[in-house]
């Protein structure tokens, strides 16, 4: 299984190096992505390969490499190789390098899984795995609070988006009846016609937008810059954040080409592109500038998918590669600068070109590409973008140009302020050139950016294949760097010129931008996740779980009363009428009245002893009732139990003060009285209801008939207890034994620091818990104590 091995090799390598000895030999792990890159490059398109996994769910390990998948797989493995190469120099501690490489390889496996899945649910599985590995990488330096927060933020936002997407995926899967991607893509008409189309699209878009950092869910990406710079270059610029773009492209045949899809995607993408390109200027941290400009470019790509024409799709495909190359190189450069100068703050560095020549060369090529200046690859990307945009509204074109101007400006600013001028006095480290291993990676990316425009025929076929897999019509595409002086070219030149002009005016412009409100949604996240959620949760939990047993009991009993009343009303049964109450004789009635009196006496008794006595009378009356109804066995047993429990009560309450220590307030007493009476009334009603609704013949005559023949005994009760239903008795005596074990255990075993006799410390019993805390304050028994607080 070739395709499966594409995933298994990096995954296995990721696990393995974590367990192998950590030394400089670990660096050879870069062979893994390099080999994969060559494999993907040489294998071309591969049709679906299926291994059965969870047939009950219709989830198989179905993998395929079409043009789109292959295009992304090349970027994933190619950039991955260079990033691992760079990281070998970036991490001086081999243990750190191994951890980084391990996470990165696992991420690579997951990311390849996304682009190669031929099953939508399988794709989702890998989708979430990239979020998890990203979490681990952002939190790489987890001693730092910012790193932990950034990691959490990224996982909450992308994971939350993923959940929305999951709902969308299920909606589509249920509609089509399959999660097989080919089936879903072939049934686009059915999906679009179904009632759940609109919610499904919105849900999937939320997932894609969260992953690809579209406004207003973009803010996690700048936060993710806490990751080690190679990880930022790889995950948060070149690959993972493009997963959302990939998904939109992948699902385009199934859910695209409708006003709701294209409208939303175009609008969100364009707004993000413009917003983030301007917002990037407010930043002074190199990585933050790069992060916002990444968000901006992701917006552009999203927007291009939303346009949905052949030209715009082509622009998106080219743009993915162009961006991966130049932005990857620039991120790595930022890492090198941080490494060399001890800071990434663009306002504290300068003149680095003097000492970091090789780094500068790579960076300048990448920066020029980012600025869209010919003849670099970035220029081609912008050209195709403008061609795509020009088919539509002039306003759209204008906005695209605005975004392009600010991107040019950002690129120039990065290059100039880092490398030109003189080295400031207060720079934290005296800068030096980084190791060759570190400058070679961006340099290679730069070289590709530089060479590719002149060998465009090499990528004609892959780009065409990728466009075909999205648009599902044969598309022959030939890329040309320079197509003559036409509208896109002129607009492009205008953008570059404007960028250069603004660059000259950058200081007042940045100051101006910093003063206008930023519309940044991360403050909303902070307010909700950082404060409202934990605060609200604590507030609510303190109300619900308030530590008072009497409140708990009241709520539970009230629930019972409420539900029973409702149901009794609903069934509208002639409860009382159906039951034969007339048969009751005066004797029974008298016992019942006495029972009520005894119950009241128990509750109202002023002392514990009196309450016990009343309870004993209550029990005796019940056994009398049994006797009246001809159950001498029960009556006698009940009586014996009453006697024994009376003794137990006396022995137990011996440990407690005779009078009740706390008196409830009037309101509480009233509440308790109401609830208790209601329970009594409802229980009575329930019994009458059941008695009046004996809907089926009872099985009890069988016991009477079979007592002697089967059970060899004339006492039916006894035969039932020890023979017919002996199993229950077996269980019940076990209960008794366990109870006895509990009594003994509780009395004999207590913490060593708790002397005997504390159960009796009536003096200290009060509502204040003082230093000599009794082990069992009376409040607990009476339900007035507090649990430990909730947090």
């Amino acid at each position, binding site marked *: 299984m070739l395709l499966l091995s594409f995933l298994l090799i990096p995954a296995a390598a990721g696990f393995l190096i974590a367990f192998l000895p950590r030394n400089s030999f670990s660096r050879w792990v870069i062979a893994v992505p390099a080999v994969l890159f060559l494999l993907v490059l040489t294998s071309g398109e591969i049709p679906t390969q299926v291994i059965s996994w969870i047939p009950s769910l219709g989830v198989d390990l179905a993998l395929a490499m079409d043009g789109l998948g292959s295009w992304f797989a090349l970027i994933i493995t190619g950039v991955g190789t260079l990033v691992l190469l760079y990281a070998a120099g970036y991490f001086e501690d081999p243990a750190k390098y191994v951890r980084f490489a391990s996470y990165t390889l696992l991420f690579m496996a997951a990311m390849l899984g996304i682009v190669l899945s031929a099953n939508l649910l399988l794709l989702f599985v890998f989708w979430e795995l990239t979020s998890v590995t990203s979490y681990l990488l952002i939190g790489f330096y987890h001693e730092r609070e910012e790193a932990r927060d950034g990691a959490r933020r990224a996982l909450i936002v992308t994971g939350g988006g993923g959940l929305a997407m999951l709902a969308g995926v299920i909606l589509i899967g249920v509609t089509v009846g399959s999660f097989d991607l080919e089936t879903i893509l072939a049934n686009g008409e059915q999906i679009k016609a179904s009632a759940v189309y609109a919610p499904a699209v919105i849900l999937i878009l939320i997932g894609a937008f969260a992953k690809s950092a579209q406004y207003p869910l973009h803010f996690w990406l700048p936060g993710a810059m806490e990751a080690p710079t190679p990880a930022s270059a790889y995950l948060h610029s070149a690959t993972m954040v493009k997963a959302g773009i990939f998904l939109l492209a992948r699902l385009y045949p199934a859910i695209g080409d409708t006003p709701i899809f294209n409208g939303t995607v175009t609008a969100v993408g364009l707004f993000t592109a413009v917003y983030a390109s301007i917002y990037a200027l407010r930043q002074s941290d190199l990585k933050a500038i790069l992060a916002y400009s990444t968000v901006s470019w992701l917006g552009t790509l999203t927007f291009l998918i939303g346009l949905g024409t052949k030209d715009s799709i082509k622009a998106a495909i080219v743009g993915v590669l162009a961006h991966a190359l130049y932005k990857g190189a620039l991120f790595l450069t930022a890492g090198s600068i941080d490494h060399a100068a001890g800071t990434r703050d663009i306002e504290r560095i300068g003149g680095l070109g003097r000492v970091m020549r090789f780094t500068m060369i790579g960076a300048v090529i990448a920066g020029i590409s980012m600025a869209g200046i010919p003849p670099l690859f970035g220029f081609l990307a912008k050209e195709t973008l403008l061609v795509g945009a020009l088919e539509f509204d002039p306003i759209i074109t204008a906005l695209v140009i605005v975004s392009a101007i600010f991107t040019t400006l950002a690129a120039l600013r990065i290059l100039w302020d880092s490398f030109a001028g003189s080295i400031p006095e207060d720079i934290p480290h005296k800068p030096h050139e980084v190791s060759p291993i570190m400058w070679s990676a961006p340099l290679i990316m730069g070289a590709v950016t530089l060479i590719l425009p002149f060998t465009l025929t090499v990528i004609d076929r892959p780009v065409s294949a990728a466009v075909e897999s999205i648009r599902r019509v044969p598309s022959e595409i030939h890329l040309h760097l320079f197509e003559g002086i036409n509208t896109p070219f002129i607009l492009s030149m205008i953008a570059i010129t404007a960028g250069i002009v603004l660059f000259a005016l950058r200081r007042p412009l940045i100051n101006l931008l910093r003063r206008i409100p930023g519309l940044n949604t991360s403050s909303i996240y902070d307010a909700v996740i950082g404060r409202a959620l934990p605060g609200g949760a604590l507030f609510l939990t303190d109300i619900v779980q308030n530590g008072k047993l009497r409140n708990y009991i009241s709520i539970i009993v009230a629930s019972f009363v409420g539900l029973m009343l409702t149901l009794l009303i609903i069934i509208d049964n002639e409860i009382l009428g159906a039951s034969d109450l007339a048969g009751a004789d005066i004797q029974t009635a008298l016992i019942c009245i006495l029972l009520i009196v005894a119950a009241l006496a128990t509750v109202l008794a002023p002392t514990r002893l009196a309450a016990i006595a009343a309870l004993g009378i209550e029990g005796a009356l019940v056994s009398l009732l049994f006797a009246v109804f001809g159950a001498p066995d029960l009556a006698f*047993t009940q009586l014996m139990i009453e006697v024994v429990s009376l003794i137990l009560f006396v022995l137990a309450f011996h440990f407690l003060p005779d009078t009740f220590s706390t008196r409830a307030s009037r309101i509480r007493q009233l509440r308790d009285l109401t609830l208790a009476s209601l329970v009594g009334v409802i229980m009575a009603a329930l019994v009458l209801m059941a008695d009046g609704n004996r809907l089926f013949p009872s099985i009890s005559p069988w016991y009477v008939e079979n007592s002697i023949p089967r*059970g060899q005994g004339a006492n039916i009760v*006894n035969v039932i207890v*020890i023979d017919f239903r002996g199993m229950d008795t077996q269980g019940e*005596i*076990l209960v008794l034994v366990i*109870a006895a074990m509990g009594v003994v255990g509780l*009395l004999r075993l207590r913490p060593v620091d708790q002397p005997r006799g504390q159960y009796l410390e009536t003096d200290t019993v009060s509502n204040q818990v003082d230093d000599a805390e009794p082990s069992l304050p009376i409040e607990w028994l009476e339900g007035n104590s507090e649990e430990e607080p909730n947090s």
Partner: protein
Amino acid sequence: MTRSLFFKFLARAMMPILILFSIFFLLRGHNQPGGGFVGGLVGASSIVLMTLAYGPAEVASRLRIDFRRAMFWGVIVAAIAGLLGLIFQSSFLESIWFKPYIDGIGKLELGTPALFDTGVYIAVFGVTVSIVMAMADESDREAE
């Protein structure tokens, strides 16, 4: 705890009667009101009386019966009665009756349900006494 002489005498006198009664309840239970459960309670009440009269320490040292052990044996005996049915018949708790006629006593009704009932008797007896003794013991220690 102060214990009156009269109460001690009463408890002592009652004890054999109650024990006899309890066995009587157990044996006749299968055909007339009674049975292992109530029998066990009655039997236990004799020891409970003694405990209240003489104190748990004295009762324990004189009787030399480990009631906590006994209660476990009760459940075990009941389970054995059930297992006999499983082993010699077809299912758990299935009854096996054995009714020998012995001169001078009459027909004996021996069966696994009776054995089961005996288990119940022992368990209830043991549980009740164990709990009461443990609690009385506790209150005695408090008083010291």
